[in-house]
């Protein structure tokens, strides 16, 4: 990160703990912050699209040191694209997670809401699902199965 962003907080973590959105938001709120866009994903107990099925729980695992490095890269890409973004939090929860549980969070703050925070958060979650090494195994009433991603990294996905 360049000096320009020195005072802008960037949080990234892989954790087994509950996501505390109030606390994460407070950590990326600065004196000049007036807006935050936050995305969270949850475990669906019931999926209707594509291949409809029920889920008992998901088991998440991560290649932790690489996942942290790639989260940092996602944050840096966001700052390059939306220099008005102030704070960024990227958190992936791992372990056994049941339906309705928030599993992932991307939050971006800025002075004003019309400076790209929504787009930045959307970009962050899309990018996390491409390059951050985390996988989930789905356990349903009829057995278990690894969820297949479909993005193959390219040389441009290195920082």
């Amino acid at each position: 990160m360049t000096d320009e962003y020195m005072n802008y907080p960037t949080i990234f973590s892989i954790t087994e703990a509950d996501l505390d959105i109030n606390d994460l938001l407070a950590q990326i709120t600065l004196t000049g912050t007036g807006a935050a866009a936050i995305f969270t994903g949850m475990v669906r107990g019931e999926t209707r699209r594509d291949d409809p099925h029920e889920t008992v729980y998901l088991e998440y695992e991560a290649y932790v040191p690489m996942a942290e490095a790639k989260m940092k890269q996602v944050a840096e890409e966001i700052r390059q694209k939306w220099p008005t973004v102030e704070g960024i939090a990227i958190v992936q929860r791992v372990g056994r997670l049941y339906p309705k549980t928030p599993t992932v969070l991307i939050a971006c703050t800025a002075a004003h809401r019309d400076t790209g925070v929504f787009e930045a958060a959307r970009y962050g979650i899309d990018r996390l699902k491409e390059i951050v090494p985390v996988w989930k195994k789905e356990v349903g009433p009829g057995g278990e199965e690894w969820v297949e991603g479909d993005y193959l990294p390219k040389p441009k996905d290195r920082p």
Partner: protein
Amino acid sequence: MNRIKVLFFATLRDRAGTKSVDLEIPAETTVQRLKNLVVDEYPGLKETMDTVVISINREFAFDESVVPENAEVAMFPPVSGG
């Protein structure tokens, strides 16, 4: 010969039956060649190799990349977090 460590995640760990293996490989071995060496050791991984993702020292690597001494290599399926 170079000593390296290879980590397996998700389906690849299940199929290899191990989380990691220490290997000795010839100097200048490419990722493409390493995949073949690993499949020789773990034939169950053969059919995962078309869509495997490889990292060297926690950064994406590609077939022509050379695996350096003491590398931490990881082999895993396309990511599915979130």
